[in-house]
């Protein structure tokens, strides 16, 4: 029973982190219909920013996370405004190629800048854990989970309650109509991409704190984001959170009761199953599949 409780808790905490990794990817896909293959590279770049600040200035990664978010926001905004916007109306194949190329560029750039060595941000507390009954609650992961949930809630509030947030959603629903209402679509797109990159950067800092990373890990996080976004569904800010938690739990329970090498297959089996039963994802909206691009 203790083992089950431990696996469940660990799965939930891991799921929260996965959600934070994927939430930006899901946002960009949902609003702009752009599958950003450079998302994983943004995550890793965020990890490097927090790592560098920690190594050079001794800055705590939970503060470094904010710096990583700022750096990535600027990068994301610029990339979208001056690069992706040029082809955002083109067939999806073009944006795929562009972001794939961007990913190669970023990963190789980090290879040159930071070398391919594995890094981790070492803190005195992140690997400590609290004992609750027979279950250990890892502190670093608990904090990361808290950040993930808080950020998702903030994002929901931002999108639902602020004018800028609503213009993001409106542009996502119908670009033509949004333009007619006076929304500057190019700016809104860049803003969305910037926010997504900032969230990826925050997730990267968390990954660096509870685990290790190097440039080559970028592709894995892109794939993971893809699975979580599809599983959770597009068009709902909670989609990535739900998707992340499901993947976290499935991997944790699967790892506990099945041979450990089956976990990846299991996660994809769940994805396939969900898509058969709910083709728009767990909480996604079918509307997004049939929207009109103008």
């Amino acid at each position, binding site marked *: 029973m203790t083992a089950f409780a431990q696996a469940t808790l660990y799965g939930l905490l891991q799921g929260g982190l996965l959600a934070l990794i994927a939430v930006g990817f899901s946002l960009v896909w949902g609003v702009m219909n752009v599958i950003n293959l450079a998302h994983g590279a943004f995550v890793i770049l965020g990890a490097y920013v927090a790592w560098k600040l920690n190594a050079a200035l001794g800055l705590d990664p939970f503060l470094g996370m904010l710096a990583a978010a700022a750096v990535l926001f600027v990068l994301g905004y610029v990339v979208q405004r001056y690069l992706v916007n040029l082809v955002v109306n083109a067939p999806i194949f073009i944006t795929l190629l562009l972001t794939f190329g961007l990913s190669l560029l970023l990963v190789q750039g980090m290879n040159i800048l930071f070398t391919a060595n594995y890094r981790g941000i070492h803190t005195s507390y992140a690997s400590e854990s609290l004992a609750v009954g027979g279950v*250990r609650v890892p502190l670093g992961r608990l904090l990361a989970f808290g950040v993930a949930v808080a950020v998702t809630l903030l994002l929901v509030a931002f999108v639902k309650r602020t004018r800028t947030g609503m213009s993001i959603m409106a542009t996502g629903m119908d670009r033509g109509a949004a333009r007619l209402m006076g929304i500057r679509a190019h700016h809104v797109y860049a803003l969305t991409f910037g926010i997504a990159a900032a969230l990826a950067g925050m997730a990267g800092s968390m990954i660096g704190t509870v685990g290790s990373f190097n440039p080559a890990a970028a592709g894995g996080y892109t794939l993971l984001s893809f699975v979580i976004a599809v599983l959770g569904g597009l068009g709902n800010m909670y989609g990535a959170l739900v998707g992340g938690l499901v993947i976290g739990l499935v991997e944790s329970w699967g790892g506990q009761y099945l041979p450990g090498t089956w976990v990846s297959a299991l996660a994809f089996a769940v994805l396939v199953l969900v898509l058969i039963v709910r083709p728009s994802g767990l909480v996604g909206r079918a509307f997004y599949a049939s929207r009109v691009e103008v």
Partner: protein
Amino acid sequence: MKTTKPVLVLATATALALTAAGCGSKGASQSSGSDSGPLTIGASLSLTGELAREGQLTKEGYQLCQSKVNAKGGVKVGDTKRKLSIKYQDDTSEPDTAAQLVDQFNDKGIKLMLASYGSTNTEAQAAVVERNGQVMVDSAGADDKIFQKGYQRTFAVLSPATEYSASIVDAMADADPAPKTVAFLSADDGFSKTVTKGGIAEAKKKGMKVVGEEYFPAGSTDVSSSLNKVKGKNPDAIIGSVHLEEGVAIVKQAHELHVVPSGGFGETVAPPTPDFAKTLGDQAENVLGSSQWTPTTQGHDTYFGTAKDYAADVKATFGHAPDYHDAEASAACLALTLAVEKAGSAKPDKVRDALSSLDTPSFFGHIKFNSKGQNVYKPMSVIQVQNGEAVTVWPQSAAETKMVWPGTGA
């Protein structure tokens, strides 16, 4: 949901990978089988992709060998001295590409090869080397599987995979108190699995009870499930057959989950890497690891001197502490050089024969190959992280200091 999207992602990635892999072409002939001019050797290396770190270290090892040999005038082939010239190509850490590059070198007439990093790449290359009648010295492919296919043209300077965790088991068996129960955690790639099987066999031979054998996908940074499974079995020691990222995850997450074996942790190749202690800080203390080479390895040769000389050379040339990846690469290049000198020819068949009968001490330890092409004559060293540094603690003959045991302080 547009179902075509995942397909497109895959299609894009595949198309780009194919373009990248296929863009080599047949160039001018630079025969390494000829009898004059520089002695050209081909090396496919993982300079980008997931093995970029180890690939870079391997390249350093080859480069250092080239400069050492050329500093002495070159390789003595018969009566003439020929400069060593190693040609590098990036295989992007992909076995298919590594194998294609071997073919490309062959098209250019380059018959003598130095292997890429890792068992998967080397295994793919060995098949092509055999078909083309080339000769390859393997610097980092330790999986016994490579040598069970009857190949006659691939020679590995390093100890076989089965020794990696077996040597840690032996070191623990010599400790006081020796662990009575042991659990094995392992990545699921071919090399790591072979390592684990070797460790389990050795543990049973030494009378230890194996209470757990858990596998997780290679490259995992979350091994909590495997740790959770062995936690209830209270092993005296936990031995991981891992690469760096999984090794770091085991120690970090064992700490989080409070999995504390009464004896300690052993983790094959992760602890000898300086990044291990850097990433983990205090938690890395007293973790055991196994290494193909340490600066206290016994033996010397004319090109590199002793292991200590080699360590100083790496530090002076590349500005970092010596890594065994450097050493095994240099040793592979050294073996090829010595074989060419012994054969008095760069013809692949003659070099092959010279390699099969090579028997020499070196800075890397004894280099000699059995009938399968493996170097089973060199022991592995066991290291322990003490005060943030990896120090040799086993075997006794090469130990720098005493092993701290129990390592967990329990």
